[in-house]
């Protein structure tokens, strides 16, 4: 093992390109493990959602609020794709511009979610009120934390791209955060359908 790593380092050009591809594959495997995390939270929600303890139910969700949240996230998924397109054209300004728009949309989404959670808590619908609310806040909150993490990650990458430009390393990093962002949108589609739409049904 040690020997083969040494051989790779000496053969620098070849080894480098292979590793970039391998890192993207590694990220796909991370996304699969993240799928498992969300699957357990979805299963918990599916089992507990009818246990509302006489309080807040799915019918009480703020309909315009979650519709706007959904479209904001959908648009941000599209703009993160446009950022990658600009990167492949070698347009550094375009790349940074679309990344900034994406993270502003992401911040809007998180802000709306915090507002939603706070107004629910103000009505007495807190984490400890019922099994339904425990599973709801855990599932939707975990997704919100992922988006928040993505925003800080994107801010870091914007600084890195503006200092180092579009290199093979920053290309890989932007491709990976774009995958992450599309994945979060995909998870939200299921939260939108299973939690919100089925809740207000």
């Amino acid at each position: 093992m040690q020997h083969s790593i040494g051989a790779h380092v000496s053969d620098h050009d070849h080894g480098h390109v292979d590793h970039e591809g391998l890192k993207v594959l590694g990220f796909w495997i991370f996304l699969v493990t993240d799928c498992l995390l969300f699957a357990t939270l979805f299963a918990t929600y599916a089992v507990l959602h009818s246990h509302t303890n006489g309080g807040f139910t799915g019918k009480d969700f703020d309909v315009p609020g979650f519709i706007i949240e959904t479209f904001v996230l959908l648009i941000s998924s599209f703009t993160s794709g446009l950022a990658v397109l600009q990167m492949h054209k070698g347009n550094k300004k375009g790349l940074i511009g679309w990344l900034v728009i994406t993270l502003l949309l992401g911040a809007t989404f998180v802000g709306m979610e915090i507002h939603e959670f706070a107004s629910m808590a103000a009505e007495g619908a807190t984490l400890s009120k019922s099994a339904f609310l425990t599973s709801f806040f855990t599932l939707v909150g975990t997704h919100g934390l992922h988006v928040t993490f993505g925003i800080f990650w994107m801010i870091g990458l914007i600084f890195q791209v503006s200092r180092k430009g579009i290199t093979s390393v920053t290309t890989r990093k932007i491709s990976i955060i774009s995958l992450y962002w599309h994945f979060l949108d995909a998870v939200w589609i299921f939260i939108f359908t299973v939690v919100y739409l089925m809740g207000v049904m």
Partner: protein
Amino acid sequence: MSNHEQHTGSVKAYVTGFVFSIILTIIPLVLVLNHMMAKSALVVSILFAAVLQFVIQLFFFMHIRDGEGPRYNVMALVLGLIFVGTIVVGSIWIMSFNEIVQ
């Protein structure tokens, strides 16, 4: 460099994917808010729209078919989806049985 030179999507592919995802969000919304179907048919249709939209994200945005050689990302994803199905469907099945015996 071959990995980077692969087709990584075009504006057309992104716009197509975006339009599809908007349509697939509006259809279930309209169905639910106007109470247009019987409950079980409604649940099946909106879940179908969600799965379809997930597939569109994978192909139009996440470029799951990119890259050469064995597609380990697809294999990992398929394995992941089997686990996801087992966890979610299995849990609901077991817990619905629990409600019958209680």
